[in-house]
């Protein structure tokens, strides 16, 4: 039997982890069991400290972006805009992997074959630069480059969590579909902002030329036969955690269920629902 001080210490660890990175189902279970056994409830000051931390992340860097860097970005933006074929191209709804840039670095090169419009490219560069500037300011050291973590959707997800008051967070539930057997993750959705993000870990890799994943959002205000298309996306690396923005094609009034299906490469307007891999039901 664990000593009471040990149990309390473990409980504090779990509270802290929960505020910062969230708990695995096993840890959440342990937390509930320990809270029940000790009769101690979570310390609200930890939640407030975590909220303050998230707020700190929203504050703009005090240092103005170096003028030279700003000029480079504007110049790059203008050059791209002047290209004859610079019409924005609809991007694939896939997590964007951007290099983690130090504040003084050159703007990110756009990978060849990276089909994005110039406006989005410029936005991506700006995000990368600002993220790099913030990281450098807070770390006091320049972070390593060449990371493969998809920072842009992650940062956007964190910003939504910190900014929107009505965010719902749901855990994915797997079906018996083989592609979802090792899958886990969650989904966040803000009804007021009509924005959200999906996180996946272990969802089977797809071959975009053969099939793609597609999100469906069931809206209580709509005919359930016609859920809202939440966008198509790919899983390139099933072992890495991937954050995918939700791309709802229609306004969602009252989301009741989110479902991921496997569809043909271009996605479909109405799914036959033969291959449902993940679902997340909104609790009423």
């Amino acid at each position: 039997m664990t000593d009471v001080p040990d149990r309390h210490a473990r409980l504090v660890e779990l509270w802290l982890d929960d505020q910062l990175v969230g708990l695995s189902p096993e840890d959440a279970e342990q937390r509930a069991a320990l809270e029940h056994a000790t009769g101690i409830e979570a310390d609200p000051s930890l939640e407030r400290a975590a909220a303050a931390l998230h707020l700190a992340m929203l504050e703009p860097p005090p240092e103005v972006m170096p003028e030279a860097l700003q000029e480079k970005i504007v110049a790059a933006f203008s050059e791209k805009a002047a290209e004859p074929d610079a019409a924005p191209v609809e991007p694939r709804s896939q997590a964007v992997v951007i290099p983690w840039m130090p504040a003084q670095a050159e703007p990110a090169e756009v990978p060849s074959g990276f089909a994005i419009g110039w406006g989005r490219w410029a936005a991506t560069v700006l995000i990368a630069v600002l993220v790099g500037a913030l990281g450098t300011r807070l770390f006091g050291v320049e972070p390593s480059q060449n990371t493969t973590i998809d920072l842009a959707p992650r940062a956007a997800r964190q910003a939504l969590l910190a900014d929107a008051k009505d965010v719902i967070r749901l855990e994915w539930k797997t079906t018996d579909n083989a592609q979802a057997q090792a899958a886990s993750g969650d989904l966040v959705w803000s009804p007021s902002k009509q924005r959200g993000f999906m996180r996946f870990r272990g969802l089977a890799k797809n071959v975009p030329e053969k099939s793609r994943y597609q999100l469906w959002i069931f809206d209580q205000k709509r005919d359930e036969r016609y859920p809202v298309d939440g966008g198509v996306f790919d899983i390139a690396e099933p072992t890495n955690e991937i954050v995918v923005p939700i791309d709802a094609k229609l306004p969602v009034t009252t989301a009741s269920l989110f479902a991921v299906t496997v569809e043909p490469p271009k996605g479909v307007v109405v799914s036959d629902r033969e291959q449902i891999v993940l679902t997340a039901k909104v609790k009423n």
Partner: protein
Amino acid sequence: MACRALAQLPQEERRVLVLASYYGLTHQEIARETDQPLGTVKTRARRGLLRLRALLEQAPGGAL
């Protein structure tokens, strides 16, 4: 105020908190990205948040 409190944390604790809070990385991902043992990352994250709470409580007017 929170930003100032964050700036007072030891660099490694601050770094872990930012990676977790701003970038949404998990303990495992932070360990991999920063080349630190997982246990070290967890300890720094927890200590950092506790220290941040203490700093905010001590701040004029009490942020908490």
